[in-house]
């Protein structure tokens, strides 16, 4: 049922989504937008895992499992990120990433 | 303790004592006393040197002391002097002592001021006695760094800008120097000992690369055209004693280093590139003089005049013969003394009139006779009047420069010689505007006359200027004796 699809085609989709996510990450200032971009990238990575597992090593299971882990970690990350965003919002009444510049030298 | 190291130890001790002194008057006295002892020791060094030369000691450096510092890197604390170094030590001692007296009336942070000043002096003394490149570079930095503090804290006008500019350019130069010194170290068999390096004969390719680096690196400090631009701003902002020491002594570190390190250690490249640098120096000579014509600020005038006179030093070095080298060293001393007095006098004038603009002054000969007369004498020395030290130095340089009949050399030489006219123009312009003529402001009618410490400071430096001018022979022979190895090195370089 999936024979006609080439590995490259799937990888291309994954790459494009990844770069779109990157693009969002570097252009947006809103922290939630950043989070969305990160999720996009994570998804594209998950796609990669799946496609390598399924198309190249169908007998194995690692890709599958790691996608699961990835989803778990992503969930954790989002939870944490949203906690941070909200606390930041409480402090500054803003979630503009450019205003978080306490890393500045 | 050998006598040369004493020259470094005494200022350090003085600084140490100064840390614990609270009373300002006491600080001054201790600083003066320390430097007085230093001067005495310098005279002893000179006497010992002359005595051992007289008794037939012909080794290149005398009173040497070698002490291994870092075995693994072959770094030594290696000191010793020859005639040139002795002459420079005398200059330093005199100018430093005079500088202490001239800044007698500094009120804020007196102690810190004297400490910085003496640290600077320590660096200079150490520099002149070092025979090990590493030690030399170390002392060089010790001398340059207090400069920034001295200008930044006790300066006037746009002092931060000036201090920054000065520091950046000097640090850039230091970086070049460091590269050059390391280059010398690696290409001469991993040694910092100057005598060994000189005999090791670095490969010509390395010399071609490192000679310009070392020469320009020191040249920046010696205000070699076109790297002189820090000097007018720096001098204009620096306090009096610092200008004195800086123009009088510190800039000589540049010229001395260019001679001792760049030329002596890399003679082949020096020979190859002499014409280029000679041209640069000749342009600097005439350029500095013309630059001084248009200035109205006394310190700027003097700074440009320094560019011109220091250009003559480089010019003399690049003429590549013994007479011109003698002239270059004499000019270092002569210019050091002259410019120190100049800056001292400018400081005194500024302290009274609160302006350094020559257009605003006038007729000061009537109200400040001592300062005005000394200014005139030094001005005359600066324009090469016979009987004063400038003449002796300049004539050596010119005669040396004319010993090469090559056309391009002749052109550069004539260019450099013609600076004597331009120098006369700007000196007399200042003398005419500032010292002569009617008094322009009512409040200048009764300015306070020079006080004792000012007189002492000015005369300390003025008298050697006259002494050298009237009886140059002892100094000339002191220098010329020591030039033999350098001349040897530079003339047998295979070119």
């Amino acid at each position, binding site marked *: 049922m999936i024979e006609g699809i080439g590995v490259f085609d799937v990888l291309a989709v994954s790459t494009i989504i990844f770069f779109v996510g990157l693009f969002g990450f570097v252009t947006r200032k809103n922290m939630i937008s950043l989070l969305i971009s990160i999720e996009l990238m994570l998804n594209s990575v998950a796609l990669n895992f799946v496609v390598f597992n399924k198309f190249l090593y169908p007998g194995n299971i690692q890709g599958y499992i790691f996608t699961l882990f990835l989803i778990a970690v992503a969930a954790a990350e989002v939870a944490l990120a949203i906690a941070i965003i909200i606390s930041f919002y409480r402090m500054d009444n803003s979630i503009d990433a450019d205003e978080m510049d306490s890393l500045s030298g | 303790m050998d006598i040369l190291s004493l020259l470094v130890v005494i200022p350090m001790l003085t600084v140490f004592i100064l840390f614990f002194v609270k009373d300002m008057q006491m600080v001054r006295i201790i600083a003066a006393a320390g430097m007085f002892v230093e001067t005495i020791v310098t005279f002893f060094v000179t006497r010992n040197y002359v005595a051992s030369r007289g008794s037939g000691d012909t080794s290149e450096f005398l009173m040497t002391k070698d002490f291994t510092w870092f075995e693994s890197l072959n770094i030594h604390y290696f000191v010793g002097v020859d005639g040139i170094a002795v002459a420079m030590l005398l200059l330093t001692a005199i100018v430093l002592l005079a500088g202490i007296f001239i800044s007698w009336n500094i009120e804020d942070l007196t102690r810190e001021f004297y400490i910085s000043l003496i640290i600077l002096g320590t660096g200079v003394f150490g520099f002149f006695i070092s025979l090990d490149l590493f030690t030399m570079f170390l002392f060089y930095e010790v001398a340059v760094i207090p400069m920034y503090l001295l200008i930044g804290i006790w300066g006037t006008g746009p002092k931060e800008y000036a201090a920054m500019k000065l520091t950046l350019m000097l640090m850039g130069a230091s970086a070049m120097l460091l590269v050059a010194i390391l280059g010398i170290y690696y290409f001469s068999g991993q040694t910092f000992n100057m005598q060994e390096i000189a005999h090791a004969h670095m490969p010509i390719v390395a010399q071609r690369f490192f000679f310009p680096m070392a020469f320009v690196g020191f040249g920046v400090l010696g205000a070699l055209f076109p790297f002189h631009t820090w000097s007018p701003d720096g001098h204009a902002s620096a306090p009096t004693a610092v200008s004195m020491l800086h123009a009088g002594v510190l800039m000589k570190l540049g010229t001395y280093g260019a001679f001792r390190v760049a030329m002596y250690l890399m003679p082949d490249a020096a020979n190859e590139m002499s014409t280029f640098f000679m041209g640069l120096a000749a342009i600097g000579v005439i350029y500095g003089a013309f630059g001084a014509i248009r200035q109205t600020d006394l310190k700027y005038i003097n700074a440009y005049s320094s560019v011109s006179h220091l250009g003559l030093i480089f010019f003399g070095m690049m003429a590549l013969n013994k007479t011109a080298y003698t002239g270059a060293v004499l000019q270092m001393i002569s210019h050091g003394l002259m410019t120190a007095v100049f800056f001292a006098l400018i400081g005194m004038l500024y302290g009274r009139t609160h302006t350094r603009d020559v257009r605003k002054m006038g007729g000061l000969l009537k109200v400040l006779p001592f300062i005005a007369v000394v200014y005139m004498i030094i001005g005359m020395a600066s324009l090469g009047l016979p009987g004063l030290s400038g003449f002796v130095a300049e*004539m050596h340089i010119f005669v040396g420069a004319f010993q090469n009949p090559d056309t391009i050399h002749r052109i550069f030489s004539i260019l450099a010689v013609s600076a*004597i006219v331009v120098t006369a123009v700007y000196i007399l312009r200042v003398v005419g505007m500032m010292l002569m003529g009617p008094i322009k402001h009512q409040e200048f009618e009764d300015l306070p006359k020079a006080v004792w410490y000012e007189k002492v400071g000015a005369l300390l430096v003025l008298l050697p200027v006259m002494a050298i001018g009237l009886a140059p022979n002892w100094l000339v022979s002191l220098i010329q004796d020591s030039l033999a190895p350098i001349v040897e090195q530079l003339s047998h370089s295979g070119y």
Partner: protein
Amino acid sequence: MDFKFTIWILILPTLVFLFTGLLGKKMPAKISGWIGTASMATAMLLAYKTAYEYFFQVGFVDGIRPTIFAYKEVWMKFTDTLVFDMGILIDPISVLMLVVVTTVSFLVHLYSIGYMHGDQGYYKFFSFLSLFSVSMLALVVATNIFQIYFFWELVGVSSYLLIGFYYDKPSAVSAAKKAFIVTRFADLGFLIGILLLSFHAGTFDFMTLVSEDGPLLAQTAPPVFMGLSIFGVALSLIFVGGAGKSAMFPLHIWLPDAMEGPTPVSALIHAATMVVAGVYLVARLFPAFQGVDGGAVLHLVAWTGAISSLFAAIIAMTQDDIKRVLAYSTMSQIGYMMLALGVSGMEGHHGLGYMASMFHLFTHAMFKALLFLGAGSVIHAVHSNLMKDMGGLRKYMPITHITFLIACLAISGVPPFSGFFSKDEILAAAFEQNKILFAIEYAVAGLTAFYMFRIYFGIFWGKETVYKHTPHESPLTMSLPLLILAIATVFIGFIPFGHFVTADRALYDIHIDPMMAGASVGVGLIGILVAYILYKKESTLADGVSEMFGQGYTWAKDKFYMDEVYQFFAHKMMFAGVAAPVAWIDKNIVDGFMNGIGWITETFSMMLEDWQSGRVRQYAFSFILGLLVIIFAVLYLNGIIDFKG
């Protein structure tokens, strides 16, 4: 004969200089004047003793007057062979100059005691005078060219100090500055000449330079510049130095302005001694000038002298300031001396020009000093330099009047006054050598008589002026020097000068050619006559004559605009054309370049700082960018991607 005592001629004024300079302020003013005068008197006597012993006791050795080194010490060693000596050289011209300098200096010292009376800087004045005297004396006894240069500069600076003596007067300050800078400019030529000689001749010593088998005369060097050999070039440059000091055209512009100084100074420095240093220099190196390149440089000397004398004489006729007239007259007379040297040969009759030149130097020093001191006496009485403020003074100042008249007659070449003898010899020498030069000088002789008597009549006759204070004769200290100089002016012409100073130093008897003498006296008398007609009585005749010359008169009165030309060069060319651009370049280009480096560094660090903004997005982007570049580089370098297809 031992001339060791000559050192005292130098030491005495030196001591006086130091003593009055350092302590003069603390002493009563009079003392410094008298000390200076006394020391100069002693020096003068010593100079006479030198002259007597040299000329009469040493006499001739092998038919020529010998050169004696009283002292010769190494002062500075450039190389083992190139040595800068200091010493005292005794030969005819140096002894002559010793006598001239000490005599005039002594009289000027004496005169100044009265003239400078009550001046604030009384002690300073005498101290400077002593400095000048010692410099000038050491200059004339120099044993080598570098010693001359040494003291050459020192007389320059004493001249500077004395011209600028009234230093609160801006005109005096600028005159002093001008004098120093113009002569300094000429000295540049001198110095380059010396330096060229130092290499090509390898010596500074006069004896070697002028000796037959010395480097200059023995070898023929190839021409390098305009047909001159390198020695010719060097000598020309040295002559430039001499021309500057001697105010030869076109380096003369400082001399008229130098009259801003006190009048005794003008008499000593700018009439009798320093300004003839150029002549002395040429005379000192005369065999070299004569021998190198077949005497080509001497043509330059002769023509410079001729042009200067004519030029100055024309201007002198139009000036109203009596000191300026005298200054131009000095320039004109020095032109005579230069010309005489220029037309001279070496031996016997051919060497007439040299002898005449030195003779004229001698006589001129006396009568020109007299003229200046006389003028000073007049100025002292009238408090003005301008001829329009004077007139009819013969009644008030008889001594000044008579002595001034004697000097005027002398300079006009009327026998038996001294000027006649020397000028006559010069004309004779010129006549034999070059008719054009002779014609010029002959004309100048007439002009000289005219302008000198113009001011004579203008001062002592002419209109009856009403004075605010009735002028009176000067005190004895001032009139005594006038009398002494007048006596000298009358009698020194009779000295058989050829017995003492000649080009080849052999004995030479002067013959006065009646034709020549008659002609020169004739033209002088014509000049005097014209002046008598025009200026004896106040009349409009003179104005009419000057109008006749129209534009030419205006040009001459404005000194042919030489000052303006110099002003143009100095200000437009040097200040605006060189110094201003240099200042601009320094500020904008050189410094701009250095600042540019600083700016780049700073901007770069600002950019870095910008990147170090703490903004995560930018960090991320930079990170991605860098990563992309690295990935690309790795891929490219490993050949995984390439652009060839």
